[in-house]
């Protein structure tokens, strides 16, 4: 079934190790973190 296979593919994709040298994209420069609440 299409739905079942799609779920399995997503799960497998999550387990793929990141390649050596992988650098996650930097967080957006602004705005900064919220210290208390918004």
């Amino acid at each position, binding site marked *: 079934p299409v739905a079942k296979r799609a779920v399995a593919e997503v799960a497998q994709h999550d387990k793929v190790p990141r390649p050596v040298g992988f650098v996650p994209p930097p967080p957006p420069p*602004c*705005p900064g*973190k*919220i*210290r*208390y*609440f*918004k």
Partner: protein
Amino acid sequence: LPAASPPPLGCDDPESEAAAEAAVSYINGHSHHGYKFALNRIENIRVIPQGLNNDIIFLELDLLETTCHILSPTPLENCTVRSFTEHAVEGDCDIKLQKLNGQFSVLASKCHSHADSSEDVTKFCPDCPLLVSLNNTEVLKAVTAALNKHNSKTADAYLKLLEIGRAKIQYHPAHIVFVEFAVAATNCSAEEAKANVEACQLLPDNQSNFGFCTATMVILPSDNLEVNCQLYGHQPGVTYSPPAQATS
């Protein structure tokens, strides 16, 4: 070939945080009314290089009101930020700084403050008291009664009102008025003030004893008034500007 320009500063970079700290310190140091504000978020930062070790920095900051009155000697880092359910007040500031040889100096600043939406507070906390106008009749009555009550109980200096800082009213399940106000000691004792209150003058700025009072006046189901005043004591260099002389 010209050298590659450095990447733009991020809002959470240490240099941005240092600039924001200098800006908040300046804003609190140059305010004579209300409460100290704490940094909630750096909204934006823009750096314009002017030369070697010389930058102009434009900052946009989101600040939150603390419980420390501006005249309080408590350092900002020890002041509590008011929670959302206390009907928080937010400040939006644009600041222009110069960073010269690692030292920040503020060249210009512009701030606006506004309370959170009453609807939002009520949605989250239906019975929480909400901020009301400082010249609300019930507020003025509560402040006057609270100060009279304090002065009638103390053997120390007679206190006069400097300014009302905050006022909230709750209607359910009881009708209660909450007020906060700043006070200053006069040259009279509370006993002397009974004879001629008009003769009692605020002490000169360099000798002033400032203080802060909170009071709760229950109107329904039964009248009750509680007041608590704390005097800060002598603080060299701290002055109070009456509203007519204040700068924005």
